[in-house]
């Protein structure tokens, strides 16, 4: 029987949650790296017991951990993230130039085929790659050398590169997203990049349709259809059918189109999930009701999924990297909250139950479906 492994990063450590394919009874392993912030953990698709974790604190900086046994044991690997060449400047909150400074790794994206190759999205925004299992890291500097980079500005949470999508059909194509510069795409394996933000509209910008400067919160893609991209922007849920060349809004009848995560059903490329949040300052669900919204039409028309989720007095948030799906026949959907709950649905979102309720604030959730 298949096994499910849920990798949870929190403000105070990591947790590994496991269950068999019935997904009824869960074992909770952790906290790992107790007291450290774990921004993200993710497993190699080709060697699922190879896991990478981003560990850090304000005191002792960034550490990268690697496991080769599915999280039972870990080894600290390389943590030297140095920008290529002269780091240069981006724009600070007050409009002045500010030197690029490494703060942390927000997201780790292992290669689909090589367990030793892994990409890291970092703050201040840049893309790094390791080809030796995390021992050494090198910036892919083409992104930060884009002519717009000196104008990029941090969002409230810092200037982070938080999304890395690797095209399954074209090894030269990658899409990344930066808060708050927007989305960028390379078609030549990272040598050159260009913004792909046409169609986005952000009223917070002096030019709402500017080429860069949009606060993209998350991108999602289904492996069978890499030209179709979904986006949860600061405000607005967006869709592109041409690899990001153009975007159209698909917020439709959502109660709020503000939010952080967005994900796609494992087997239905037009079924997508978001968690509406009341506003960009309140950061909790509308009406105190925690609702996942599902669209089976690739956006536009949405249904509230509420069964098993708190429908009163709930004021948690769901962060951008804290939703994932498994690939069992009945697709499982998982998300974690800033209140420390990790919810799972065994029926594609129709009903939900907590796996755990009282973890530290959840920063990230990833799911592995193991044979």
């Amino acid at each position, binding site marked *: 029987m298949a096994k499910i492994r849920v990798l949870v990063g929190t403000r105070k450590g990591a947790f590994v949650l496991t269950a068999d394919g019935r997904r009824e009874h869960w074992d909770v392993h952790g906290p790992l790296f107790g007291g450290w912030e774990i921004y993200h953990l993710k497993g190699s698709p080709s060697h699922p017991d190879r896991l990478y974790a981003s560990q850090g604190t304000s005191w002792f900086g*960034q550490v990268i951990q690697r496991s080769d046994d599915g999280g039972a044991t870990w080894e600290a690997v390389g943590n030297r993230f140095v920008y290529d060449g002269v780091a240069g400047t981006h724009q600070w909150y007050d409009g002045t130039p500010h030197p690029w400074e490494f703060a942390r790794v927000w997201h780790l994206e292992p290669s689909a085929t090589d367990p030793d190759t892994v990409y890291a999205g970092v703050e201040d925004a840049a893309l790094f790659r390791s080809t030796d299992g995390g021992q050494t890291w090198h910036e892919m500097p083409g992104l930060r050398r884009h002519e717009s980079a000196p104008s990029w500005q941090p969002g409230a949470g810092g200037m982070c590169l938080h999304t890395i999508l690797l095209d399954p059909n074209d090894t030269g194509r990658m899409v990344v997203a930066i808060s708050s510069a927007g989305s960028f795409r390379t078609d030549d394996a990272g040598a050159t990049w260009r913004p792909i933000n046409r169609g986005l509209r952000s009223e917070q910008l002096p030019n709402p349709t500017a080429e860069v400067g949009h606060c993209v919160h998350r991108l999602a893609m289904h492996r069978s259809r890499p030209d179709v991209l979904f986006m949860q922007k600061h405000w607005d849920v967006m869709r592109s059918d041409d690899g990001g060349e153009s975007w159209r809004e698909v917020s439709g009848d959502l109660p709020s189109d503000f939010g952080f995560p967005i994900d796609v059903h494992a087997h239905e490329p037009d079924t997508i999930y978001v968690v509406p949040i009341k506003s960009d300052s309140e950061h909790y669900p509308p009406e105190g009701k925690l609702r996942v919204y599902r669209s089976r039409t690739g956006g536009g028309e949405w249904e509230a999924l509420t069964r098993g989720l708190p429908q009163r007095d709930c004021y948690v948030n769901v962060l951008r990297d804290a939703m994932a799906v498994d690939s069992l026949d009945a697709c499982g959907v998982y998300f974690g909250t800033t209140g420390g709950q990790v919810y799972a649905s065994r029926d594609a979102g129709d009903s939900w139950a907590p796996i755990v309720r009282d973890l530290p604030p959840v920063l990230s959730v990833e799911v592995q479906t193991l044979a």
Partner: protein
Amino acid sequence: MIRVVLPPHLRKLAQVDREVKLDVAGPVTQRAILDALEAAYPMLRGTIRDHVTHRRRPFVRFFACEQDLSHEADDAPLPDAVANGAEPFLVVGAMAGG
């Protein structure tokens, strides 16, 4: 033999007990101790001082002999009691919320 006490998070990271013992060649300075520490425990690189500039991380402090040595020059000699192993060199995570 130089004695170094690490804060709990770094002890766990380095997989060591309370005190680390190091051989330091030449004058015993902060730089010499940290060079020896990072050579013996590579996983500590970048956690106490910056990889490139070697500047102490802001929330890390260095104490010894009931003195705060955090602002001493990297190459300033440390007290004899540290150099001869009578007193440990303490790497301390600054007290702060979180």
